[in-house]
């Protein structure tokens, strides 16, 4: 049982840390495939990564239902920390969550369990914050789409089975769809629903 006193801290400077974290996320979303750094420092409840914790403090609040995967929900620490610092409701049904935080990419539920938004309101969709092993090493992917000048290469150990099939399905639903933010430590890469991935040799 964690008491409030034992709970990891939030941002030291809420305002400016949230601003710099948001700009990193905005740049990542506007330029898919580029690795952005989260500068802000905050306490982190294990097994959350520092980048994911900073994004939670920046974007979560009482208006954003949050879903945690089974690894994060295994102890109450993460849910308590999120509720205490952001007031976000932590919910059990991923179909209505604004944000999903996933620590175990291998066990990521298929996208249809999350919210795709509707044709009229495609913005009412889930953003999945996915903690991955690496955003610098691993299989190479070629990325194309808005925000990318031609094509770019991302090397990342994402660890989601059938990732490309899932993203192809996601792409076919446009403008509905899921947006992904990959986090590895303090590095983040965004894969909005407009980005097209192809596995690249070598």
């Amino acid at each position, binding site marked *: 049982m964690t008491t409030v006193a034992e709970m990891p801290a939030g941002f030291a400077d809420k305002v400016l840390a949230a601003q710099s974290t948001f700009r990193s996320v905005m740049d990542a979303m506007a330029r898919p495939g580029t690795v952005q750094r989260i500068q802000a420092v905050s306490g982190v409840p294990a097994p959350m990564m520092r980048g994911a914790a900073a994004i939670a403090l920046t974007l979560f609040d009482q208006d954003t239902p949050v879903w945690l995967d089974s690894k994060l929900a295994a102890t109450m620490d993460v849910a308590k920390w999120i509720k205490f610092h952001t007031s976000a409701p932590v919910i059990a049904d991923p179909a209505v969550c604004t944000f999903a935080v996933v620590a175990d990419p291998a066990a990521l539920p298929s996208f249809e369990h999350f919210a795709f938004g509707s044709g009229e309101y495609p913005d009412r969709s889930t953003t999945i914050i996915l903690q991955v092993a690496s955003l610098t090493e691993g299989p190479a992917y070629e990325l194309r789409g808005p925000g990318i000048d031609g094509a770019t290469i991302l090397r990342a150990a994402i660890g989601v089975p059938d990732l490309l099939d899932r993203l192809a399905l996601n792409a076919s639903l446009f403008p509905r769809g899921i*947006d992904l933010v990959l986090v590895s430590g303090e590095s983040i890469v965004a894969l909005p629903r407009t980005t097209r991935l192809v596995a690249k040799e070598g």
Partner: protein
Amino acid sequence: MNAPTYNFAYLDEQTKRMIRRAILKAIAIPGYQVPFASREMPMPYGWGTGGVQVTAAILGPIDKLKVIDQGSDDTTNAISIRKFFEKTAGVAVTTSTGDATVIQTRHRIPEATLQAHQVLVYQVPIPEPLRFLEPRETETRRMHALAEYGLMHVKLYEDIARFGHIATSYAYPVKVNARYVMDPSPTPKFDNPKMDNCAALQLFGAGREKRIYAIPPYTSVVSLDFEDHPFEPYKHKACCALCNAEDSYLDEIVTDNKGSRMFVCSDTDYCETRQSQGHRGSENAAPYAESANA
């Protein structure tokens, strides 16, 4: 403590979070108008409350802010908004397009090519391009969902039927990323080609109408047209009377009651930069800014 101070960049943190989430979804769905809970700002609607809220949500202490109104850095609206953020965020401000990291604009895109580290924030009065064709929000929303844009082409065709050419000269509709038809805000259609494949992120904020939308960098933005009536950016057949620029968007200025007029660059920073480089127009033969050299 002295007198009570505002939060950084005026808005409270909960409002910023809400706007920031809307901006992220807007970037993920290029050209789609994301509803947001627009706040009352300490300036009237129509003065850029949407743009101001977007700027306040993204601005940080290391940013350098430029604000333009119809291309000009020194109109009331531009100066007021610049001072607003100087006071509430303490950020550095500039009039130079090249130095700025965040540029808030009303109805123009700077002439100088925007760079990848810059963000352009548009003030938007009416974000819905179909609004004057279909007043019901439920209907326009469905038309966007179904990508049903025939009505817009009919409107452009009616222009051709009546005037012989597409007479829409500002707020000229564009298609973003081959999906959403979007209102580029009342920029002259001269500026439309600059939005296509632009290196900078473009964000649009409509305060009264409570919508935020975006064009990510390097995204296709195509002005709607017809094969036999291709899009043509309109421009006065003249060059700037102050800096002799032939490639910039010109304002027509009436100089007396006899119909005399002159054309000058609408982008004041572009014009002043050219003049300082020694370019001279017909009305500016005398050496420019002698005092600066003295």
